[in-house]
């Protein structure tokens, strides 16, 4: 355990001394803050517009007044879903791409491996260190966003909203750890850090953009032709093909879970947290399972292979 903690602390220290990491992280935090500001302003404008219309209708003597728009507080934070899905994944890749190959290239992996620590402890230490950095990062974003949310919108989240928000950040943590673990595995398998980084960026592009786009195309253009009635009927937006494609995109799954948790989808916005989680269990598993699979591969690779 001692060795794991020593390794984890070193990972945290080295990551926070990396200027490029600090720049990407700064950008990440800034964008998330901007997104809360924009989200809050939009909702405020929506409410203002409603109040203006009400005032106008009342001044014209209208008796039947429209009901106020249903505003879900957490939807103010909805842009964070995209930022975590895209920039969060890049941050995790950046953190992980030199975990092993960088150490191998500067000779420090050998210096660690000749110490009295087991090989799997090296992976656990790096994983814990990465997890701590991602946790700190998401914690900072959570605190900043909560504070800004309260200040800009003037609303205080209730318990249900707080739990939803917390769950969102836990899912975001798992999602970022998936990329970190996968990158760590790639970094172990290659000596070329740049190659590892590029490979993971291609994977990121595929699962964050290409697959969701493909799934979308299947949703939007799925039509049924009735030859007897000579009509074309548009099928419901989700198809077997689009859902199957999404299975291979943790980014799409993360976005689905995020939209549910942050009340972007009106149908699930009033659901209790447990019912919502039950509804999203499949999507959570689709993020967790690839992460666990890559983690097992990483442990196996480290134990089996020579340190050269």
């Amino acid at each position: 355990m001692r060795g794991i903690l020593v390794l984890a602390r070193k990972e945290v220290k080295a990551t926070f001394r990396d200027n490029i990491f600090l720049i990407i992280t700064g950008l990440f935090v800034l964008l998330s803050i901007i997104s809360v500001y924009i989200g809050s302003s939009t909702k405020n404008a929506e409410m203002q517009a409603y109040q203006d219309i009400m005032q106008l209708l009342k001044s014209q003597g209208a008796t039947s007044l429209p009901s106020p728009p249903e505003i879900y507080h957490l939807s103010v934070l909805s842009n964070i879903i995209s930022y975590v899905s895209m920039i969060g994944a890049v941050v995790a890749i950046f953190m992980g791409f030199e975990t092993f190959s960088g150490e191998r290239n500067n000779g420090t992996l050998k210096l660690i491996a000749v110490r009295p620590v087991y090989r799997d402890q090296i992976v656990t230490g790096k994983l814990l260190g990465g997890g701590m950095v991602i946790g700190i990062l998401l914690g900072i974003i959570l605190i900043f966003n909560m504070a800004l949310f309260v200040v800009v919108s003037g609303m205080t989240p209730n318990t249900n909203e707080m739990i939803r928000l917390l769950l969102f950040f836990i899912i975001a943590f798992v999602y970022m750890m998936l990329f970190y673990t996968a990158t760590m595995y790639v970094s172990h398998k290659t000596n070329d850090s740049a190659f590892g980084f590029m490979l993971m960026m291609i994977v990121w592009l595929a699962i964050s953009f290409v697959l969701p786009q493909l799934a979308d195309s299947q949703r939007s253009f799925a039509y049924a032709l009735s030859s007897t009635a000579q009509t074309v009927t548009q099928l419901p937006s989700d198809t077997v093909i689009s859902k199957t494609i999404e299975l291979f995109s943790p980014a799409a799954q993360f976005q689905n879970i995020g939209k549910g948790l942050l009340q972007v989808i009106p149908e699930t916005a009033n659901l209790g947290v447990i019912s919502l989680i039950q509804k999203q269990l499949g999507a959570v598993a689709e993020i967790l399972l690839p992460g666990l699979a890559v983690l097992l591969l990483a442990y196996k690779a480290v134990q089996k292979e020579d340190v050269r």
Partner: protein
Amino acid sequence: MLKIENLIKKYGDFTAVDNLNLEVKEGSIFGFLGHNGAGKTTTISMLTTLILPTSGNATINEFDIVKDNLKVRNLLGYLPENVTLYGDLTAVENLRFFGKLSGIKDVDSSIDETLKLLDFTAWKNRKVKTYSKGMRQRIGIAQAILHNPKILFLDEPTSGLDPQGTKELRDILLMLIKERGTTIFMNTHLLSEVTKLCTDIGIISKGKLLLADSIKNIERDFPEEKSLEEIYFKIEGGIR
């Protein structure tokens, strides 16, 4: 101190180390000689538990390098060729990391003692990336001896050093023998270094050990050769 029996390392069909048998006595400086690709680094990598032997065994202080690898790691210090350490961390931060990983309880006093021994205290709070090659090599030695190992493995320690840096390193190693009684196993292809520093040598070529003995005995057994260089080329040339 170190006993190697029938040690073999194969990569597919290629045999990097072929049936190596060797003993290194406690308190000696053993120079492991051979040209590039002879199998020196592979041997040191097996002895430091970085890679697994294909067959055979080796023990350090009676501990098997495979079965008792954690105990073996407690006994050894290692300086690989061209190590750069963590450039963004200072010397003290690097040493604290490796010291804690080695399980040293009072790591800060060990660091102070080691840096004093290596006359490096003045630069201890500078980031390692600002160091010269010689300074980095010295801090590399510091991480290797921080936990006071019984045996120190050095892989081409003078590689890339200028004559001044080479002399300083030699002085440090001699001091280590004198002050701490550390056994040193050193890979090198610089015969001049071996002559000035080592008590015993082994010559390896194409994975096979051609000769291993004390320098005194070797010089006695090769009376016609004027220098270790001539002896080396005679032995090593014999199998080319």
